């Protein structure tokens, strides 16, 4: 960080342009203001002389300070301009008063600037000729894409044409891209960036009847006890921590129970302030949650009155989770008979009958003191001496649901409703979120055509990675994801792509369109594959060495976009500078491709056109903004312009019209929400889940979580013979998969010049490793499921049977990292950053999805750590620090 010793910052003059936006990164989406003015002018330090409207210096312990990393030089209408992108110090929601993270605070450094590390933005379409990327025109790129796609679809069928894309990068782009994939192509070979198939992140929530993003940020503040599983918001949802949870601890002594194998700053702070850390062994969440439920049940601490009123009884659940027999995401979960209960009494009976819920057994398997589990149950559910109940909320993220997807989420949500949470202020069950919520579906995923078939009429969304591995994909359109590095067993997956693409003998020798088409057709006919990669940078390794065609996308700040945050708050992200070179927003690119393929409905002139069209298709969803579009029309405005008037405050979806005005929705399933007796006004949709749970009856379901469905896999992959757990995830300073933070910000790169591995001091001593040593992290048994698209019953899908039937192979993988020895990971576990471009931790993670849901178990890597030698950082004062992340 020493490189950044700039000691002054320019101020915007009074007449600077002021626009609003939000941070591009984590799900919290703090509100920011953009100040833009031509180079050559400057503002003064008095409020009357600057566009910030504040006197400088600003007071201590408050927002409004403009630090050097908030400044950049951009081009606006071709001319150089200063730009300051600073947290909105007047905002009263989300990042109240101008709080910010280390990532968003420096988001001005995201802007393209030839004098800065962003200079390597992709700027024009390219094609790989003789292994080297050569520039081509958009017109040629569209022709090649369209004709190759048409050839592949006609000859090999739509399912040989794949699309892998971000799920979050703005409504306009996700709508346009999914409209193309689902409504026009109709492919089943589709997956979002973080998932091998089109599977929901928390299927157990779905079955209990809870929407992932039902809570508002105020609910996390209002809770007396907050259960946080699988994440530390300090690290990855910074302002949710700073402004809501940390304030709840300080202002009304909220007790925070962290369930996580890793102790980071937020966890350590909670422990110091009346909270608790259940530092469990990776992958054992289901057992811990069942044990907690059992303690509550045995003591009679459940919220009986609430349960009677708001959960399904045995008659109501009979009809498939209270949702109709075939009404789950994929119909088979209802008919397996493994998960459904006949209401509370049945759930209680089941929990009490399970070995996994026994306290001492759970304590042993989870590696957590039995007394701590009992204490946690008390904090969650034990009534106060006056008979009142603690208000408890339950928040979850990927450390939980990406280790054991289905039963972790079904048992977590069931524990929540046992405590009376899910439908009222301060008592909610939700995800905290990862990326922002920018998904707007432009079509329906054709699950009924999925080749993943099971007995009866059961079909599951297709595992795209396995489909590629099996050689079924001839054309792949990849948008805004690395695909390879982002998936499990990623080293081996990259090899699959190389075999299909770069090692195929049919390679280009010129950019001539006819030549390109001939070679691509020969390639797909020989069993190979053609790949188009659309992104903002050339990413390792999909861009640098694998894809045939590279399409350059415009991004945040370069086009008006819209998106929601983790409490469904919808805002406009203003365009404020010229996109570099020939870059175009994703919606523009896919529209050009679609038109070239002869599809209609892609004549959008700007992003607002896409926004308004998408609004019609999102009417039934939790981010419904159609009333805003309609009101704008009535007022003679464009949708984006009306949303711009809501500034950084935005409005929470679903947006409703009430008394002729737009109103937001604070929380879903909200039993306290009073809707007008006069009924929904024009364009307003009242779905039952506004005030009730997301089931047919509107009541929640208690779900089972049988351990045996996961236990055989767990027993097989858990560390043995000198291995330890190699966990992975994001950290505070590097959130953004490296494409901005660590690759293009000097002060972050100085902090983390290479990937690291946190190792517990006791493990480090055994391994003879010290902080600053280079280590190799390797495994020769990374399991990869290579086949098994069919099954007759649940047994066929269990790991032990997949193994027996030859559907699993084991591959070797190795990465290098700099050791950081600290009492942060639990003994026997370690932690790496997940997506380092050179050394991605995902090479070590098992590529065997949860058979019940189709999600990966990203958090369950194992490997052996071995010292290589000393890194240059060990004795340097300039780069890296090896201090603990849990100092309080």
């Amino acid at each position, binding site marked *: *960080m020493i*490189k950044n010793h*700039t*000691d002054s910052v320019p101020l915007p003059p009074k007449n600077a342009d002021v626009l609003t936006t939000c941070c591009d990164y984590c799900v919290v989406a703090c509100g920011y203001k953009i100040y833009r003015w031509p*180079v050559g002018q400057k503002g003064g330090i008095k409020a009357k002389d600057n566009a910030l409207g504040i006197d400088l210096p600003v007071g201590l*312990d408050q927002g409004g300070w403009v*630090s050097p990393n908030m400044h950049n030089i951009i081009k606006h209408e071709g001319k150089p301009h200063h730009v300051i992108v600073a947290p909105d110090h007047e905002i009263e929601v989300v990042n109240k008063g101008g709080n*910010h993270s280390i990532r968003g605070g420096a988001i001005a450094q995201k802007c393209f600037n030839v004098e800065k590390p962003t200079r390597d933005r992709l700027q024009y379409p390219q094609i790989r000729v003789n292994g080297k990327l050569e520039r081509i025109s958009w017109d040629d790129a569209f022709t090649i894409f369209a004709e190759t796609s048409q050839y592949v679809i006609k000859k090999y069928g739509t399912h040989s044409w794949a699309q892998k894309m971000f799920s979050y990068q703005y409504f306009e782009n996700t709508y346009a891209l999914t409209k193309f994939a689902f409504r026009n192509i109709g492919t089943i070979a589709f997956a979002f960036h973080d998932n091998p198939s089109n599977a929901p992140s928390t299927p157990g929530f779905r079955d209990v009847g809870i929407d992932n993003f039902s809570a508002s940020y105020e609910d996390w503040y209002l809770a007396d006890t907050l259960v946080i599983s699988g994440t530390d918001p300090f690290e990855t949802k910074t302002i949710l921590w*700073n402004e809501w949870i940390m304030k709840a601890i300080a202002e009304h002594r909220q007790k925070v129970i962290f369930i996580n194998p890793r102790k980071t700053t937020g966890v350590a702070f909670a422990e110091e302030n009346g909270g608790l850390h259940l530092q469990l062994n990776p992958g054992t969440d289901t057992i811990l949650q069942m044990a907690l439920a059992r303690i509550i049940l045995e003591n009679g601490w459940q919220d009986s009155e609430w349960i009677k009123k708001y959960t399904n009884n045995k008659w109501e659940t009979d009809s498939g989770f209270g949702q109709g027999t075939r009404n789950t995401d994929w119909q088979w979960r209802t008919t397996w008979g493994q998960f459904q209960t006949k209401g509370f009494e049945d759930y209680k009976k089941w929990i009490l009958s399970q070995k996994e819920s026994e306290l001492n057994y759970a304590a042993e398997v989870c590696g957590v003191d039995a007394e701590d589990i009992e204490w946690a149950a008390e904090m969650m559910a034990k009534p106060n001496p006056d008979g009142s109940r603690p208000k408890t909320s339950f928040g979850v993220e990927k450390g939980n649901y990406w280790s054991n997807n289905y039963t972790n989420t079904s048992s977590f949500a069931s524990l929540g409703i046992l405590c009376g949470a899910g439908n009222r202020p301060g008592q909610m069950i939700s995800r905290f979120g990862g990326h922002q919520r920018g998904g707007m579906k432009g079509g329906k995923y054709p699950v009924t055509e999925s080749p993943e078939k099971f007995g009866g009429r059961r079909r599951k969304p297709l595992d795209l990675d396995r489909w590629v591995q099996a050689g079924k994909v001839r054309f792949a359109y990849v948008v805004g994801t690395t695909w390879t590095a982002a998936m499990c067993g990623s080293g081996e997956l990259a090899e699959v792509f190389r075999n299909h693409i770069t090692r195929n003998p049919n390679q280009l020798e010129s950019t001539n369109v006819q030549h390109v088409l001939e070679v691509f057709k020969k390639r797909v006919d020989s069993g190979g594959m053609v790949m188009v990669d659309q992104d903002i940078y050339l990413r390792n390794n999909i861009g640098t060495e694998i894809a045939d065609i590279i399409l350059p996308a415009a991004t945040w700040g370069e086009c008006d976009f819209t998106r929601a945050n983790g409490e469904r708050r919808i805002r406009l992200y203003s365009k404020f500078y010229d996109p570099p070179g020939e870059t175009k927003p994703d919606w523009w690119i896919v529209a050009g491709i679609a038109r070239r393929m002869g599809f209609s409905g892609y004549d959008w002139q700007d992003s607002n056109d896409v926004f308004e069209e998408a609004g019609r298709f999102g009417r039934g969803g939790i981010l419904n903004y159609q009333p805003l579009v309609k009101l704008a029309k009535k007022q003679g405005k464009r949708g984006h312009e009306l949303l711009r008037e809501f500034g950084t405050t935005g409005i929470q979806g679903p947006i409703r019209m009430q008394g002729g005005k737009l109103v937001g929705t604070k929380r879903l399933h909200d039993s306290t929400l009073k809707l007008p007796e006069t009924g929904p006004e024009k364009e307003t949709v009242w779905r039952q889940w506004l005030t009730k749970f997301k089931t047919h009856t509107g009541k929640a379901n208690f779900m089972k979580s049988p351990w045996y469905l996961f236990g055989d896999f767990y027993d097989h992959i858990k560390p043995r013979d000198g291995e330890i757990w190699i966990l992975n995830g994001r950290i505070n300073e590097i959130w953004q998969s490296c494409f901005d933070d660590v690759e293009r910000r000097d002060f972050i790169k100085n902090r983390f010049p290479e990937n690291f591995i946190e190792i517990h001091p006791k493990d480090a001593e055994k391994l003879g490793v010290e902080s600053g040593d280079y280590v190799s992290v390797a495994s020769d048994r990374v399991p990869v499921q290579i086949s098994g698209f069919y099954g007759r019953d649940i047994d066929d899908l269990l790991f032990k049977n997949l193994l027996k039937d030859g559907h699993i192979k084991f591959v070797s993988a190795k990465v290098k990292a700099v050791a950081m020895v600290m009492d942060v990971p639990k003994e026997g576990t370690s932690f790496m950053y997940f997506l380092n471009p050179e050394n991605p931790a995902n090479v070590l993670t098992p590529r065997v999805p949860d058979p019940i849901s189709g999600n990966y178990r990203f958090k369950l890597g194992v490997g052996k750590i071995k010292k290589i030698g000393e890194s240059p950082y060990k004795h340097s004062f300039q780069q890296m620090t090896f201090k603990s992340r849990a*100092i309080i």
Partner: protein
Amino acid sequence: MKEEMIKVENMETRLPTCVNRRQFLFYSAGAVSTVALSSIFGVSAAFASSAKYAEYPHKKIVSLSELQTDTPVDFLYPNDDSTYGQCFLVKLGEKAGGGVGSNNDIVAFSSLCTHMGGLLSRSYKPAHKVAGPCPSHLTTFDLTRHGMVVAGHALESLPQIVLKIEKNDIYATGVAGLIFGGVKNPGIK
């Protein structure tokens, strides 16, 4: 050390179209001198081209003989502003980047967290040689590594006060970085 004064009347009029960091630093230094950080902190050649600090009037902080390991000393710098000039000096007892003294273990920093101006002066942790976590939002800075963020939200390292020793006295001579709150360091025009 250079004492030469560089006068730049209006940095804006002299900024090239796309100013780079080095130029920006040079132009923005105002009526103080900029000194290559390499001469003070012994940084590697890769950093020498861009890493500089601003030299300000020298000020005696404390005598070496009065200093005890792990006991911070508060002082005001670069001027006597009782809010923005709050700094602390500490003898860490282990070698540190920019450290002075026979063990290169005496360092000084601004006491204001570069996240949102929380006061770090009472947060020194002897066991870890860090400042923090900041009482406001828990950012922690490594005092052995030029105030680098260990974990937290600050967009800049903690501004390091450049020190020198003359006979038995420790002097502050400059600041590497922008102190929280203003657009220039306190007292600098």
